[in-house]
């Protein structure tokens, strides 16, 4: 009797466990393709970081190749390139973050003011249109404007003003402005949609009350709209600061058409890695630069998040 009493208890525990395992197995099977993909696409390359510390020899493979310590990094930081690509990546990103935020919020507020539904939808669609296109297409549009021989700016505008044509793809001094303009042209629609959807979500009661109190439109924007957009602005900021060490490869590679004479102002870390890897097959330098980007980028994300946790905890990403 007493045995019987113990055994069912044990069995119940066991069957319960077994039953559960059977219940969960299908879920693990469903998760499996995703897990395999992450292992191949994301986690295996993380071990590939060792390439940066190796003198890579394809015949020997990654693990057979000889270690070279920090030599690749020494070469990279001894060259002038390291400073140029870091400076370009950071400065462009800072300019992009500030200008995109300002323009996107400005446009979102104006679209929200427009009473005609048809017009407002039309403006949104058109301003968003460039975001839909690939960077290759964007480079064709830029070429139609900037080509030294056949571009619209040299032939249609400068010539009519009696000015000398400019060899755009060989003159670095204009490119900080061109790249910033192109970035805004392509990206402002996306940010505008996000801010616009936040503005639409603001309760009309605030504005009605403000109007009754005689507040002007400008005062309403300054005292109601912008303060209520703060959480969205902060989230967008953190996301962008976290990616400040990454540049938009398409913008910096396609728009200047990888023109060598512009490298001083157009080469960012991503462009450098691509050229070192694919054009010069220099695994040492390219892997050093790409690991430098991953690690500093990781620190930036953690830093941005830690900062925001201090300032306003509810806006932190994790």
């Amino acid at each position, binding site marked *: 009797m007493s045995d019987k009493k113990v055994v069912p208890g044990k069995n119940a525990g066991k069957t319960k466990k077994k039953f559960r395992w059977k*219940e969960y197995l*299908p*879920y693990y099977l*469903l*998760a499996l*393709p*995703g*897990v395999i*993909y*992450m292992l191949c*696409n*994301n*986690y295996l*390359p*993380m*071990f*590939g970081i060792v390439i940066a510390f190796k003198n890579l020899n394809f015949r020997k493979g990654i693990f057979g190749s000889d270690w070279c310590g920090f030599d690749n990094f020494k070469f990279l930081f001894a060259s002038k390139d390291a400073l140029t690509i870091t400076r370009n990546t950071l400065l462009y990103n800072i300019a992009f973050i500030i200008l995109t935020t300002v323009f996107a919020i400005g*446009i979102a507020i*104006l*679209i929200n003011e*427009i009473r005609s539904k048809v*017009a407002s939808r039309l403006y*949104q*669609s*058109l*301003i*968003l*249109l*460039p975001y839909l*296109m*690939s*960077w*290759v297409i964007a480079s*064709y*549009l*830029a*070429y*139609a*404007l900037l080509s030294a*021989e*056949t571009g*619209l700016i040299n032939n*249609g505008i400068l010539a009519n003003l009696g000015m000398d044509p400019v060899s755009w793809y060989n003159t670095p001094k204009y490119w900080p402005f061109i790249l910033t303009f192109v970035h805004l*042209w392509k990206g402002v*629609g*996306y940010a505008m949609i*996000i801010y616009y959807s936040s503005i639409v979500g603001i309760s009309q009661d605030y504005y009605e009350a403000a109007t009754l109190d005689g507040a002007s*439109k400008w005062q309403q924007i300054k005292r109601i709209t912008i303060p209520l957009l703060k959480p969205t602005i902060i989230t967008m900021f953190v996301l962008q600061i976290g990616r400040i060490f990454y540049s938009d*490869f*398409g913008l910096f590679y396609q728009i200047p058409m990888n023109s060598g004479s512009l490298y001083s102002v157009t080469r960012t870390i991503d462009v450098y*890695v*691509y050229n070192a*890897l*694919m054009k010069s097959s220099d*695994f040492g330098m390219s892997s050093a630069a790409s*690991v430098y*980007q991953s690690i500093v*980028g*990781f620190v930036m994300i*953690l830093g941005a998040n830690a900062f925001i946790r201090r300032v306003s905890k509810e806006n932190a990403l994790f």
Partner: protein
Amino acid sequence: MNEKRKINESTVWQIAAHAVMIIGSLLALLPFVLLVIASFTDNQTALINGYSFAPAKWSLEAYKYIASEWGTIGRAYMMTIVVTVVGTVLSLVITSTFAFAVSNDKLPGHKILMFLSIFTMLFNGGIVASYYVYSNIFHIKNTIWALIVPSFLMSPFNVVLVKNYFTNSISPSILEAAKIDGAGVFSVFTKIVLPLSVPILATIGLMTGIGYWNDWTNGLYFLTENGGSQYFTIQIVLNKINENINFLANNSELAAKATQQLPSTTMRMAVAVIGILPVMCAYPFFQKYFVKGITLGGVKE
């Protein structure tokens, strides 16, 4: 008096808003107009006067040339469609199955799985390591998988979106009822969860599809002109024309075709027009979902 001031103020705002938005819209649109007009310009005229909104002489020669070279462009078109469709479907399958598993908060380890996914947003091995893994371990170079698999198949962002949709919009009681009726996990997923999730799947499917349609970087890294040109998509062909304006002539089946016939100045614009045409035509119809996809992506959870 006060009333009048208010009306004036609001009229001024309307006019100012419309004016700014018209300028902004034109800035966004005019380069595309220039592209289309340039593609219909006579090649000689374009060489002498440059691209212009009002060319002195119009011509269809660029499109005639493309029609005669339809072998390369047509195949690239087919590849773009195949890659976009296969990639989007695979991506939806992998994302939704994974998201369904992690959305079950009774599942032991669901937090670890979610962390594995989120962590890929924070840290990565870098381009060089990815390139090495894909080309030397998986030997993906010059295969069609090179265009489909790297980077695009499962985005952690989409996993979060779909998982949140599963937990917030599908009531657990429906799933419980199905289970009591004896439905297995797989049939619950395919017969109940997926049909109820069409809105979110359509939205992320659209964003993924646009990503595949516009992608040129995978081809840049993993397809070479010697061994992989049969897999070139329209974006990769456009990129190759950027690098080498004679790309189409060099890859012509009519190899004898002389290069001087190539209306290169306007032809490149015509290829670009053909590349954006389907997206432009479909844009009004999917714009609503596109905007929704952006707002979903912009709001973190």
